[in-house]
């Protein structure tokens, strides 16, 4: 599979991500549809493997998670290399996972992806946001219980040192955009002059508009 180019969240697809406005600069590689849990397309296969629970560690299927992490790291690296200034002038950080680091289901897959993507580049790669408590991952929750940006903001604290001029937040799936909006807001409140961008491995395409409607 050749490395796919990064795509923009723009006027043709922003409506699929409820909390995103024109001011939010977000990018993605693949599209993901969660409809029946099928994983035949590259995008669906990648996301489903990436999200395999860390509790499956040691089982044969867990190797697919490792492969998905490597694929994502290669895609991200190829994209970052097209704007190589980011390795000097940006802080590259994962959006915090739903579980805190002491939780048995804590999954640092996004940190692994970011670290691998920037390997050898001497970039400022690290956790920039810390999350106060665990909650159920968005994809595990009934739509109505998903966290809103304001609720998530209250959970995030910024970690020192101050980020560089541009912050690139990386996450696996862009759904409503709540996490990105919350993270950007926390960063910009403390550092109003920083530019914040989001890069996602895939954006979720809502196949049934009513599903999403219920979520909001």
């Amino acid at each position, binding site marked *: 599979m050749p490395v*796919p*180019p*990064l*795509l*923009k969240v*723009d*006027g*043709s*697809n922003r*409506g*699929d991500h409820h909390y995103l406005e024109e001011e939010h600069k977000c*990018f993605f*590689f*693949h*599209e993901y*549809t969660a*409809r*029946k849990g*099928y*994983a*035949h*397309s*590259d*995008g*669906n296969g990648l996301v489903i493997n990436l999200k395999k629970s860390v509790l499956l560690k040691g089982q044969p299927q867990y190797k697919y998670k490792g492969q998905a992490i490597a694929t994502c790291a290669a895609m991200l690296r190829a*994209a*970052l290399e*097209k*704007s190589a*200034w980011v390795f000097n*002038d940006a802080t590259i950080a994962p959006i915090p996972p739903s579980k805190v680091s002491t939780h048995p289901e804590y999954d640092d897959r996004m940190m692994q992806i970011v670290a691998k993507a920037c390997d050898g580049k001497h970039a400022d790669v690290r956790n920039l946001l810390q999350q106060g408590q665990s909650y159920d991952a968005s994809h595990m929750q009934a739509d109505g219980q998903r966290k809103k940006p304001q609720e998530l903001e209250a959970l995030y604290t910024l970690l020192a040192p101050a980020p560089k001029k541009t912050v690139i937040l990386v996450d696996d799936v862009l759904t409503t955009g709540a996490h990105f909006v919350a993270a950007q807001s926390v960063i910009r409140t403390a550092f109003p002059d920083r530019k914040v961008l989001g*890069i996602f491995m895939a954006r979720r*395409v*809502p*196949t*049934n*508009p009513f599903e999403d409607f219920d979520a909001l």
Partner: protein
Amino acid sequence: MLHDESSTEFGAISPMMEMGAYEWLWQQEQQGERKVSFKVLAELFRDHPGHWPSELVSTTDAQACAEEVLARLRKRGVKSFSVRMQGAGDYPEGLKDAEHPLQFLYYRGDWDLAYAPRRVAVVGTRNPSPEGLRRTSKLVSLLVKEGVTIVSGLAKGIDTMAHQTAIERGGDTIAVIGTPIDQAYPKENTGLQERIARDFLLISQVPVLLYARRPPSVNRLFFPERNITMSALTQATVIVEAGETSGTLIQARAAFKQGRKLFILESNFQNPKLTWPRRFEEQGAIRVRDFDDILANLDASAAAAQG
């Protein structure tokens, strides 16, 4: 340090701008001396390898066309749609087997179905006999039971029966339509089209803006084009029933060119008015006396492709 737009953007492609550029190219109607067509556009991109539509069209033009498309789709109640582009992720390799591969297409629904392990196109005439409809229903029921995704063109007749039966039997279905993503033809299939867009997969390669301003007599030419895409998207095409001049025969020829299997139901051979069944059989089409013939051949080709 100052960065120009391109160096800050990771080489990212804007689907909206590609959509606008693609629509603009179609709007020109002429490409040099030639009338714009899928052939002309495929050649344009073949001559500009690695180029995106947006690199061949001015930003202002692409932006204006994109906004016009979005406004139109919104007005027509299309809340969510997406696009597939050659060169971006999730563009099925099989589509490149078409003689003039699509640079760009619109879809609604679950793109994963385009990658379902077994995909078979079931097609035929818009004016089927009662037996033709009965055979379609029986064939589709059997294929669905075997986990095959049913692909068809949402036309009146055989196509409609194929989609409806797939849904009724709890199977999956893909409609490749000859109208833009916001329009149904025939009108009475509007509900079925919406159902497929919501729960399954609806695909259209038809440019929205050009279609909107041309008369139906010219727009009809898009129908046979989508037959070629339907074939490219599947491993095999089954012709249930078709006349001598049916658009279905375009799909049969495309299937051969693309190295896909073509199945023809036996009843067509028994019709003395038809010459095409024997002609295609000579070229390698498989005559279906028993529906199991389809599954046996399908699996043989799948095994060969893997080995």
